[in-house]
């Protein structure tokens, strides 16, 4: 999910190459005659796209990459100049601004215009507007996949059927049109089988944070880990190798009782185990990570690593039920779950991962995540008896990132845990 090259693990190197390779394929798509489909991360249909030999392009990833490359401020301003409000989602503005500025991707190559906008409308209304805006500027056709929200706290069979029927009757025909190929279910099954294997390894890695010390950071570190599975690689051989290698590295760290490797080197003593809710800030990603690891705080579970899809309750893509399992994946992504479910998930993480507390990182851009987080905070505190902390910034709009402010809050929060702990020890 990132181009930051400071991490030293071999899996990191492989991931970097995979992503660079993907962007090169995208840049050469027109000459190589491959078609490109824009779509979103939550509940994405990567295997289906790959089964048609289509190349996915994910504007959210482009936006976060722009944030990490310190280009987002300029892109956002560009979008605001052409009439977008300061109030709205910065991912959208960052993407539109990039498009306006020549659509140069993170590897310096020009990204192609999409041949289709696959509007997998899952857990975020802004997606709808985003692709309407892209449709206006690219003239690409849109295929809409409505994924019902789990308003009542569960995905019903009717919801699944609705999604499957749309896949059959709307999405697959659209993909056939754009790719010029027939739907090949056997090929899809092969991809899904590989997905399930890679998913097993990813889940193993995420759950390794139950060890003490935790061999991974399940937020700042794990956004790299979920990169391939949530973007263009699920179902590929590359992804299979990447997760196998990652798992071996983590196994090795567990054996050596080592913590995660941070951009500033191996993490030292782990004094705080935390759960984090909410997406990260990308413009000051390393700075924020440092605020945590330099204080000995390691994240043992996060909701953001479930943003593409949730594997907690045993879900895996299933070659025997190809479209059904794709539909279940879409329905189950984190932000498509209602607030009581989200609060319960976080509470369970706090308990299962033996966390000292949990933090809510609230981003201005994303109402889907943020609206209601203050109630989640209160609810999880009540459910777990562990202290919750709250801090705010944005995804990619640096105007909303105040380092001093966040550092103050994080430090205050960690000192509070420390103080409470020393009181327990004293008594």
């Amino acid at each position, binding site marked *: 999910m990132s181009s930051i090259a400071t991490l030293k693990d071999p899996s990191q190197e492989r991931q970097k190459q995979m992503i660079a390779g993907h962007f090169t394929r995208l840049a050469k798509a027109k000459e190589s005659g491959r078609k490109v489909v824009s779509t979103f991360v939550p509940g994405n249909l990567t295997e289906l796209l790959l089964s048609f030999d289509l190349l996915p392009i994910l504007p959210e990833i482009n936006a976060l990459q722009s944030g990490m490359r310190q280009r987002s401020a300029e892109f956002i301003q560009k979008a605001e100049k052409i009439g977008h409000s300061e109030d709205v989602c910065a991912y959208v503005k960052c993407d539109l601004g990039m498009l306006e500025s020549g659509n140069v991707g993170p590897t310096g190559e020009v990204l192609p215009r999409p041949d289709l906008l696959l509007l997998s409308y899952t857990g975020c209304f802004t997606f709808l507007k985003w692709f309407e805006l892209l449709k206006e500027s690219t003239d690409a056709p849109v295929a809409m996949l409505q994924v019902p929200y789990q308003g009542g706290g569960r995905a019903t069979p009717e919801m699944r059927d609705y999604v499957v029927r749309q896949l059959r009757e709307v999405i697959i025909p659209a993909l056939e049109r754009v790719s010029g190929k027939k739907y090949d279910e056997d090929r899809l099954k092969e991809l899904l089988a590989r997905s399930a294997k890679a998913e097993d390894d990813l889940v193993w890695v995420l759950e390794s944070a139950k060890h003490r010390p935790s061999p991974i950071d399940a937020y700042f570190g794990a956004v790299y880990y979920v990169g391939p599975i949530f973007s263009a690689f699920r179902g590929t051989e590359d992804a299979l190798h990447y997760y196998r290698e990652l798992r071996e590295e983590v196994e090795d760290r567990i054996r050596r009782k080592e913590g995660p490797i941070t951009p500033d080197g191996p993490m030292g003593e782990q004094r705080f185990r935390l759960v984090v809710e909410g997406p990260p800030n990308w413009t000051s990603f390393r700075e924020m990570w440092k605020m945590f690891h330099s204080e000995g705080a390691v994240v043992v579970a996060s909701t953001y690593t479930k943003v593409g899809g949730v594997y907690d309750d045993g879900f895996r893509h299933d070659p025997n039920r190809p479209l059904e399992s794709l539909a279940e994946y879409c329905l189950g992504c984190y932000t498509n779950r209602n607030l009581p479910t989200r609060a319960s998930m976080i509470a369970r993480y706090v308990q299962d991962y033996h966390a000292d507390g949990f933090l809510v990182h609230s981003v201005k851009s994303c109402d889907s995540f943020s609206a209601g987080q203050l109630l989640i905070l209160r609810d999880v505190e009540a459910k777990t008896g562990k202290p919750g902390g*709250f801090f705010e910034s944005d995804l990619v709009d640096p105007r909303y990132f105040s380092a001093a402010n966040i550092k103050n809050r994080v430090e205050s929060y960690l000192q509070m845990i420390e*103080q409470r702990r020393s009181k327990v020890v004293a008594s």
Partner: protein
Amino acid sequence: MRCAVGIDLGSTTTKSVVLGEDGRILGRGITNSRSNYDVACAVARREAFDDVRRTLCAGALARTELPAADRPAFLERLRRGFQLSQYLVQLGALREFASAELPAVEALFAGSRLGPALSRILDALEAGAPALFAPDAPRRSDFFRDTAASEYHKLAQSIASPQQPFEALLGVFDKAILKVENRDIDIPFAEGAGRAIDRAILQSCLPTRTMAESIRAVLTEVYEHPLEVVASVGTGYGRARLPFPKEQIRSEILCHGLGAHAMFPGTATVLDIGGQDTKAIQVDGDGIVTSFQMNDRCAAGCGRYLGYIADEMDLGLHELSPLAEKSTRPVRITSTCTVFAGAEIRDRLTLGQRREDVLAGLHRAVILRAMALLARSGGVRNELTFTGGVAKNSTAERVLRQLISENYGDITMNVSPDSIYTGALGAALFASRMALAREEAAA
């Protein structure tokens, strides 16, 4: 004597509290925070230690023949005498820096010659100083800048002329005062405390020379008594810039919690509205923080907001509340955005709304934001302690009491006149504990 020191480096003021071995508060010091945090920290600390000496003087006086009834007046004379000494030393520094600034300012105001006027002003300031700190004079601000500025302005206005423009004279002052503030002036005993003791003795018309001598001896001993700092802890908005190692830094959240608990042991909830931020803190029976919330990214609804309002209305900060209290029909203000505050106020005044009604509405808006933070942090539990600069504003206090009672019922609300020292007190208590733990470890 062994003491523990706490320093709270805030966005507007820097405070220091010194505790004795028994945990009693021996002294407090305050100064305005400036661009140079090291100096602010040193000044607040020194002020606190001056205060410690005065506290010790009070104890020492009890061992002299001075009748108990005369002691408070004597101590007040001592305090003012000491302030006078400090004031004179700082005036000297102001003179020195101002002369250095002269050429640069004169260059900006073509044809001006400021030297003579400046000398006249500073001479007059010096001559007028004893009256400012005379026993019957009204109490002054604790800050040299405030006292000197108001006197300087008055004089500069009266002698301004085309060759000596008022703006130019003010320019000299503004540049020089920054430099004065950016150094800590430690006054030797003979020049400062010694002279103050002499003055107080003189002003008190003591009946016998022996009594005078014994008082002088006892007080001199107090000033010569060594004070050993066993531990220091820093906190506050600018704590990261304090010249302290990391283990001696505590967040202001923890310090406010503990400080409020020390002031009012029944405290369960703390509301602190400071210059830059608002904090709602829940503490347990020992003053340990269990949860907290702070205002979001923007400083809307904090002390600074009231500051902008005061500027916009051309009022002093202390004039806001008395005016707001005159309101009969408070205006509903919906935004506490500092950026738009000025425009909103001008609009409302243009529409014919009365200043006092607008002000009353603004105070209410500030407290409503605080109410939201309190609710976020887990609500208000009995007792609530209200701290920070805004706690000194009686309208804010009244509105808060009313809203607390409407929303949370019968809650005891504590406001200490010393609430500005809450964070520094908490820090000093942490320092005390740290020293104790160290001793235990050594033993």
